[in-house]
């Protein structure tokens, strides 16, 4: 009797883990294939099945072709500026707002909450925002992609809820000692809020790094375009020669070049991933937004 139960248990575990293994492969194989394709030299593509185990003689030529092209490097620099600068603006704007709104005794707090909720719930769509950005003359400046989303309202609520849970005794004691509110924020509240600052900071940073629509909409000047916009043009086959040395002498096929450009845009995310997953999972669960 007991033996049969153990046997069932083993079969059950095999089924469950087999299912997980299949899911694992479904998720990773397409990405694996991109990587293999990017390493395949020109003329070796005929046997595409072999690419799942890797090309016979691999090459980093496709990567070299991008990384030696000034337009591509400029796009990477633009992406870095937008991600770092944009995230800094996000935090500089979001932290004070969430902190002020976390103070329960603040006169007018109810009205401020309504002031925030209206645009949170009602979104008039793309064109009215587009007109705001263009009427301010922000198009063709990097500000156009860093400022309009400076405060993500749901991020602001998550942060506010975190601040609200910091014991008031701590801040009250400092207040009695005569510390200024700014000092309390920087010396007491923010050091206690590192997890949420990291989570929200990462939320914003990933968003900036991945953003392609607003840059495409507002940055017509090629000198300002970030990596995702270039990647989009490369994938759609637009002006490939503008971003990569690609001609009759090219040692990489178009497919390898596409694959390499896809992979390059994923690398920073992959490098940050161990970090991201540590904080994001907690943050995403802390995301219950209550008024």
């Amino acid at each position, binding site marked *: 009797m007991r033996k049969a139960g153990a046997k069932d248990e083993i079969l*059950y*575990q095999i089924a*469950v883990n087999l299912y*997980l*293994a299949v*899911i*694992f492969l479904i*998720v*990773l194989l*397409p*990405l694996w*294939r*991109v990587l293999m*394709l990017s390493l395949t030299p020109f003329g070796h593509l005929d046997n*595409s099945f072999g690419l799942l185990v890797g090309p016979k003689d691999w090459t980093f030529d496709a990567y070299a072709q991008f990384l030696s092209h000034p337009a591509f490097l400029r796009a990477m620099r633009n992406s870095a500026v937008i991600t770092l600068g944009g995230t800094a603006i996000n935090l500089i*704007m979001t932290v004070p*707002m969430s902190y002020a*709104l976390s*103070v329960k*005794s*603040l*006169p007018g707090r109810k009205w*401020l909450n309504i*002031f*925030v909720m*209206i*645009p*949170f719930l*009602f*979104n*008039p*769509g*793309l*064109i*009215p*925002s587009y*007109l*705001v950005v263009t*009427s*301010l003359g922000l198009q063709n400046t990097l500000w156009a992609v860093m*400022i309009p989303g*400076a405060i993500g309202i749901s991020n602001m609520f998550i942060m506010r809820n975190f601040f609200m849970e910091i014991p008031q005794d701590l801040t009250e004691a400092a207040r009695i000692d005569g510390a*200024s*509110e700014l000092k309390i924020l920087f010396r007491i509240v923010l050091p206690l809020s590192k997890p949420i600052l990291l989570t929200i900071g990462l939320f914003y940073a990933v968003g900036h*790094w*991945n953003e*392609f629509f607003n840059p495409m909409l507002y940055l017509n000047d090629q000198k300002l375009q970030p990596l*995702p916009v270039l990647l*989009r043009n490369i*994938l759609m086959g637009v002006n490939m020669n503008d971003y990569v040395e690609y001609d009759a002498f090219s040692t990489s096929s178009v*497919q390898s070049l*596409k694959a390499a450009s*896809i992979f390059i*845009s994923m690398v920073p995310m992959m490098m940050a*991933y161990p970090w991201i*997953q540590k904080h994001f*999972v907690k943050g*995403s*669960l802390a995301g219950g937004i*209550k008024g």
Partner: protein
Amino acid sequence: MTDIVRRSAALPKKNSRSGEILRHKAFYLMLIAPVVYFIIFKYGPLVNAQIAFKDFQALDGVWKSPWVGFRNFMTFFSSIYFWQLLRNTLTLSLGKLLIGLPLAVILALALNESSLRRFRKTVQTATYLPHFLSWVVMYGVLLLLLSPDEGLINEIIKALGGKPIAFLQDPKWYPWVAVLSDVWKETGWSAIIYLAAMTGIDPGLYEAAEVEGATRLQRIRFITLPGIADVIITIALLRLGTILDAGFHQIFMTYSVPVYSVGDIIDTWVYRQGVLDFQFSLATAVGLFKGVIGLLLVVFFNRLARRYSDSSLF
């Protein structure tokens, strides 16, 4: 009586109201920049939305363009696009929900049941990786999988003697590509919340079931699933509140003229009408229409969700 009590309680407070405000002046200073930002970038668009009721002329600007009442809305409602856009938006959105949600729950169940701790962790980490990829990268991955001349799947079809399929350009296939690629990208991430809900179930229940001789599947059916039912219902309701968001970035990146009949959604149409064809007023009217319906849906479904649990959007 209660009125008097309330008023007398309010009196001393009223005297110190200005004192209260002064005491909080540091917080108001912190709010200056965010409030200015809100007025320009969150309320500015609400003000500009008036052009939905106008015939917007770039030279006249938002304020001086002439009013036309509901003409732009009527144009949209009576156009051939209205039902097509609504149908595509709802089909893709519901498809993602109906296929994505059960798969996320099943993935969470499998992760929860697996006794191989490290393998479980690895699978979980891998499955939510795609959540962090942009739709540009995803489009690249899809091209290298699905395109007729370089896609892996078409290589396989060709090797088996079949004819390559233009998955991204064929109206028969495109909705499946849109739904399944979104499921591929988001299932791992969505599973996190169900997994968290499962770990919150009282282990005593499982022990009792084991003593009673319940099989593994019975335990899932009578303990795990009922234990996370509230969470499932809540998530489904919250998703229904945003049902008109069918995934603008995804569709924008992956669709093309041949699949407009099945892939064009409200948001992509608004983009083309407004930004590409300069029909600002018409595009704004449609955006506003979506905004109003969206608001009603969110409020309605959040009310419902609140009945099932204490977690809601607001």
